[in-house]
């Protein structure tokens, strides 16, 4: 029994090793998902140690996924706004999941321990997941932090309905004139499609692992 587990361990280690080698050769995110695509399922470790993903939200109408991190000043500017999104939309059926995809060798500020500290300091009302292998960010095609996705539940999974910025003014929430994520969720709640399904924003590069 012990031997079998040991062997499984070795096989798993080899598989993980092979995965990280493949990623090292191709560190740049591929195209990722597009509007209307099925959203990739995933499970990642939360700051409280729980392992969760979209499937965890069996009753949700949709999800807001935000790739973000500790160190990026643009992410920090948006922290209170993603807290507000969770407060407004979780109760309406669109809870928010934050995902940190940064390599902690390149960006030590984004380590799991520091994520735990930030989540506690800011009392994040949403899970803050660690995408340690960066596979989730790659599958989604996330390119910067913050980078938001809005998913809508379908019969069999989720579709991608919005990709992009949270709003149109990073420096001053009060001066934002377009609230892209909130507008997208409100459209989906009304049974319509987001008027602007893709937007761009300035942000920090995702810190990909170095080969």
């Amino acid at each position, binding site marked *: 029994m012990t031997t079998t587990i040991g062997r499984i361990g070795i096989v798993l280690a080899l598989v993980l090793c092979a995965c990280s080698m493949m990623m090292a050769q191709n560190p740049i995110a591929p195209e990722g998902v597009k509007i209307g695509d099925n959203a990739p399922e995933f499970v990642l470790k939360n700051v409280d140690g729980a392992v969760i993903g979209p499937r965890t939200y069996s009753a949700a109408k949709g999800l807001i996924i935000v790739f973000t991190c500790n*160190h990026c000043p643009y992410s920090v500017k948006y922290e209170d706004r993603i807290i507000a999104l969770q407060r407004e939309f979780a109760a309406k059926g669109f809870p928010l999941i934050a995902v940190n995809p940064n390599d902690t060798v390149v960006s030590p500020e984004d380590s799991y321990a520091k994520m735990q500290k930030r989540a506690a300091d800011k009392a994040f009302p949403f899970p803050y997941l660690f995408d340690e292998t960066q596979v989730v960010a790659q599958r989604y095609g996330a390119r910067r932090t913050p980078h938001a996705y809005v998913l809508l539940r379908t019969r069999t999974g989720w579709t991608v309905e919005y990709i992009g*910025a949270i709003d*149109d*003014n990073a*420096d*001053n929430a009060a001066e934002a004139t377009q609230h892209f994520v909130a507008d997208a969720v409100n459209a989906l709640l009304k049974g319509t499609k987001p008027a602007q399904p893709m937007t761009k*924003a300035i942000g920090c590069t995702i810190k990909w692992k170095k080969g």
Partner: protein
Amino acid sequence: MIVGLVLAALLSTSVPDVTLADLERRFAAGSDTVFVVNFWATWCTPCVAELPAFDHLARTSGSYGRPIKVLLVSLDAQRDRSTKLEPFVRKRAYACEVVRLNETSPHLWIDRVDPAWQGSIPATWIVARDRRVLHEREFTRRELIDTVKSFLSRSPR
């Protein structure tokens, strides 16, 4: 008091605002010049790390056989101009012209620079009369020089 104000004015480095339209006018007036436009911000650690490479390019710009103009375009917020951006520029004293981009609605202006740009910085835009390339990446000094040389070799006058 007046002397103090004059001194302060002389010592301060002002970073003017530009719009994308202003930059386009600069490009159009530049005729033969190749513009190396680096989008950066004081808050962006990898951007700040690569600025010396752009300083080097500016200081050696006479050795490429064609006029090269290095422009550092800051994406710092208006309210950080006098408290962060200008003190930074003063302290570093780079040989590059520094301006601050005064554009709102990034979801619109990012595409005007290059639809392929995802919006992360640093990003470097090399602009000649006939050709434009946006590099959404960081550069070492060597990589920057090689990239500029490669651009020049494919962009004959």
